[in-house]
């Protein structure tokens, strides 16, 4: 017997005495007994009966209203509230800066988005966007001002984050380049090259704006971030040049323009060292010394000169070397020898790195010597009085 027939037969059992249908006589007598048992003492239902069955209809529709209208409306309201709260939190978090309460929400969202982004190329693009966001945050911190210790801490952590991220981007670029199917690598390299230039400029602006307000450590972190960004940018440019030399979809003019941009960038770095050298070593020291007693400072000036002269001469020499090296890079670019031009550019970057550290030493040393000179001068003035 098939299931359908069987279920029909089961339904047909209803009404058969053998299938448990009670005798009518018993049904009636049992009802009578039951009604007698429940009716004499029962009086609670009286008040309800005064209103007839209308009250039950009212209750019934009340229940329906609760179940079908009130509950869905309540659920919908809760959902809307959660959505609005989420949207508000997210938009506030997106505008937050390092050190703000909702900043962790922003970075967590970024991490989640990155985790759900598939394909190395898409991940690199997203990571590069995140680096650009970090630079915007640094500008925000500059504009915000406030406590210099907190500001330095937030600047340092953001700069370190940029360094970490660009190193990851460089690793990804290497992986994409060495992968068997690396069709999209040229586009990625172009994107990294353009964006790292912008990031480098942004970081340089931030450094300039914060140079006199935050600690040397924070500035060092910005310097490191600039170096790491240039590093990944140069790596991307190398990929572009290799693709050009392999005859891929890029013109010589475009490559030349990109190399020229990098050269211009390094030239600006070298120029900024020359300006700094004049201002900090010459101008600042003399200004401080002039503030002391002129008659008694000659010996102190000598001591400053002894400490700094050797380093200053190194800076000057290296600065000249850097200038010569970048000029060579420009010549090679003129000859359309992009491979050698970028190699020379990298050498120049190395010299600029050395210049950076030497410049830091000069600033630190001369600062200490100036402090010492001013103290000594003050003591001598007091003695003379």
């Amino acid at each position, binding site marked *: 017997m098939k299931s359908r027939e069987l*279920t029909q037969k089961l339904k047909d*059992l209803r009404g058969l005495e053998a299938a448990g249908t009670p005798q009518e006589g018993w049904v009636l007598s049992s009802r009578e007994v039951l009604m007698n048992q*429940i009716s004499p003492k*029962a009086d609670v239902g009286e008040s309800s009966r005064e209103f007839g069955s209308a009250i*039950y209809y009212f209750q*019934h529709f009340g229940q329906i209203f609760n179940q079908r209208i009130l509950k869905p409306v309540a659920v919908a309201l809760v959902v809307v509230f959660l959505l609005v709260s989420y949207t508000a939190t997210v938009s506030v978090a997106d505008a937050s800066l390092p050190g703000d309460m909702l900043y962790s929400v922003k970075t967590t969202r970024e991490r989640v988005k990155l985790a759900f982004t598939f394909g190395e190329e898409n991940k690199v693009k997203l990571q590069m966007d995140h680096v650009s966001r970090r630079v915007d945050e640094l500008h925000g911190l500059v504009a915000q001002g406030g406590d210099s210790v907190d500001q330095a801490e937030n600047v340092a952590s953001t700069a370190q984050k940029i360094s970490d991220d660009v190193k990851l981007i460089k690793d990804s670029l290497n992986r994409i380049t060495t992968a068997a199917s690396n069709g999209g690598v040229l586009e990625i390299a172009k994107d990294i090259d353009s964006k790292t230039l912008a990031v480098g400029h942004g970081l340089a602006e931030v450094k300039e704006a914060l140079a006199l307000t935050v600690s040397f450590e924070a500035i060092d972190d910005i310097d490191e971030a600039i170096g790491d960004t240039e590093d990944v940018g140069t790596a991307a440019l190398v990929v572009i040049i290799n693709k050009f030399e392999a005859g891929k979809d890029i013109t010589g003019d475009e490559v030349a323009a990109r190399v020229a941009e990098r050269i211009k960038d390094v030239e600006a770095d070298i120029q900024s060292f020359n300006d700094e050298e004049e201002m900090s070593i010459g101008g600042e020291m003399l200004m401080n010394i002039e503030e002391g007693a002129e008659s008694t400072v000659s010996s102190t000036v000598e001591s400053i000169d002894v400490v700094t002269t050797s380093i200053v001469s190194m800076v000057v020499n290296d600065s000249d070397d850097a200038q010569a090296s970048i000029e060579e890079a420009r010549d090679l670019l003129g000859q359309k020898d992009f491979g050698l031009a970028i190699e020379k550019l990298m050498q120049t970057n190395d010299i600029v790195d050395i210049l950076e550290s030497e410049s830091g030493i000069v600033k630190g040393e001369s600062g200490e010597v100036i402090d010492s000179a001013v103290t000594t001068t003050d003591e001598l003035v007091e003695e003379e009085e």
Partner: protein
Amino acid sequence: MRNALGNSILFLQVKGQDQEAYGRFYDLYVKRIYRFVYFKVNSTTDAQDLTSEVFLKIWQYIKEGKDIKNLNAFTYMIARNLVIDFYRSKSREDQSLENTNTLDQVDQSKDLLKEQIKDSDLRGVLSGLDHLKDEYKEVIILKYLDELSTKEIAEIVGKTNGAVRVLLHRAIEALKKNIKTDEE
């Protein structure tokens, strides 16, 4: 739809301790509850006593003001519990009196009723049903004779909806097997 509305109003009236409504509730449920009990106890007299007790007990619960969410499922649950109590006390009585004839008498009375069924298929289905495990018999009656939903059955037997679906499937397969065996 009209029936559903009518039942819903009736349940509210019953919960409101309306005796007249309770009479109508009795009319609506007495045959189903009797059948449910009868299949479990296999005795007309016991089924009658237990069914009467079910309706009295429900009224007592209502009078005590207990919160009854689903009166339909609640009615079957009361019937089920009373049958369990019945078997417990019967087991004790049988042990003390060593009376083993009752079940034999019950089977004989039911066999007589079965013989009066002219449709051999129906007779086969009923015999197959009688030889099923109690839990299979229970879900088949609730589902196909009383037409309760899986959700309501789950509430009555204290299982999940999924477990009831599985139970129903196995019960139908077991019933088919019983019918086939009887035919052979």
